[in-house]
């Protein structure tokens, strides 16, 4: 029995973790803005955020490949500034995954912020809390289940991606070969037992993550309502 190569698994987890952090950092202000703005551009931006939900990942991957490539405007600018090539690299994967999983983080956060509404913020303001204080001590605790859902969905969705990675990351061991690609490779090579073990591992892992999140959310939800 050959030893199970765990490198794709670690790479996948690392990619998902980094992507989730980036998504929370970018998605929180974006979701906050969408939840509170009365600006007309809101609908356009919401549609843009939701695009990855309906587009085939290959379409997104294709455009990303063009944009991030050495002749694309992002890639060319990046390389002119002295950066290493983005395509077929880990940073490139993070960029692709971030865009691909964006709606899975922004939408639950936006819904949470909308549900919280302005009322608790107004109360906090009348109790001398400055804007950041209000966000950290009122919004964040009230939005905890929303943050958890957003982070989990973003993480899980990144773990499960295939098309975008294939387009912009290719299949370079240790650098861009994530689990989904590795499984595809094993199947192509008729290494069913390896494909089996990786798949089963992913299945168990995904279930455990989602189960923990739902349990936690239920406990927090029960306290909040």
């Amino acid at each position: 029995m050959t030893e199970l190569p765990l490198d794709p698994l670690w790479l996948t987890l690392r990619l998902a973790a980094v992507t989730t952090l980036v998504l929370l950092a970018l998605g929180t202000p974006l979701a906050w803005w969408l939840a509170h703005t009365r600006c007309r551009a809101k609908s356009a931006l919401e549609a843009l955020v939701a695009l990855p939900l309906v587009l085939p990942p290959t379409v997104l991957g294709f455009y990303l490949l063009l944009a991030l490539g050495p002749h694309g405007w992002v890639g060319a600018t990046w390389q002119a500034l002295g950066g290493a090539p983005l395509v077929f690299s880990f940073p490139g994967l993070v960029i692709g995954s971030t865009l691909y999983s964006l709606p899975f983080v922004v939408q639950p956060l936006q819904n949470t912020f909308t549900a919280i509404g302005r009322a608790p913020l107004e109360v906090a303001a009348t109790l001398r809390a400055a804007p950041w204080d209000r966000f950290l001590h009122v919004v964040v605790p009230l939005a905890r289940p929303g943050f958890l859902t957003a982070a989990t969905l973003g993480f899980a969705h990144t773990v499960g991606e295939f098309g975008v990675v294939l387009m912009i990351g290719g299949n370079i061991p240790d650098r861009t070969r994530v689990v989904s690609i590795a499984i595809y490779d094993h199947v192509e090579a008729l290494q069913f037992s390896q494909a089996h073990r990786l798949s089963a591992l992913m299945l168990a892992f995904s279930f455990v993550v989602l189960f923990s999140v739902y349990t936690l959310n239920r406990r927090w939800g029960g306290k909040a309502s």
Partner: protein
Amino acid sequence: MSAVQGEFHLARGNFRLAARFTLPARGITCVFGPSGCGKTTLLRCVAGLERAPEAMLKVHEQVWQDTREGVFLPTHRRELGYVFQEARLFSHLNVERNLRFGWARVAQQMQRMRWEEVVEWMSLGPLLARRITDLSGGEKQRVAIGRALLASPRLLLLDEPLAALDAGAKAEILPYLERLHTTLAIPVIYVTHAIDEALRIADYLLLMEAGAVVAQGTISELIGRQDLPLAYLDEIGTVIDAQVAEHDADFHLSYCDFSGGRLSVNRMDAALGCPVRLLLRARDVSLSLVHPAQTSILNILEGRVSELLPRGAAQVLVKLELPGGISLLARITGKSAHKLGLRPGLQVYAQVKSVSLVR
């Protein structure tokens, strides 16, 4: 010197707010008016929760807002307390941590309220460890009032704090609100559309209609002012501040004295000498030229007609002057006024069919 001076102009769709007011340094001012007249908007402007394009607000000689000078203190930098209609407690914190939210954000040397004092006033001790979800409506509002007070406000704002409560919870909260008169040395603005609430707790009234402050003053100053388009004041009548003078155990009555005479009311649980506020509805007052001798009515007051104010086609509001300079309103028909030959200066006897205790 007035403690609070404000002026707010704001237009929103068909609604226009154009309000100017001054409030005394202490006491409860009720902002009273029909629903939709802009009471809550005015309160939110004072708190800085709404930003009026043209505004001026000075609290204790400190400018909170002045559009001409470009001054706008954001809400969190205004030393105020705000009690919302729906309590709005933080659901992620228990009672004690809700109370501490504002308390902890005021520097110790700036704290004007003592923790134990507020907890005692509002009877919050037994609730401190409770979760928000385990509180009744009345308890929630008590916590909300305590939380606002613990932020050491220099101006306390209450937006219909009883409107969302049932009768039982209202009765539970009102004594706490009344106590604010004597315990708080700061101005309080209390928004309500319920006249009985306003009569019970107000020291001053600010009457609003269609976004404008139409009158302000003490209750007795306002009632009977004929320039006010206030049909509902006819329904109210006269408010008299009196003192409990005697209890009559046999007939279950209490007698209350004021400068214009003595009134009997249903027996109340109050010590002799205790101040009470009585309401004599204008429609419950009838007039007679001679002292009515054989009548079922107990309360008969002597006075002089000072003014006759036509109210609609058939009714007349008669303003009487009682000894001690107190005005009493009677609403009678134009026909009766004509039959009695009422005119200013005429001596009459007012029969008051019912007197209700408002406080």
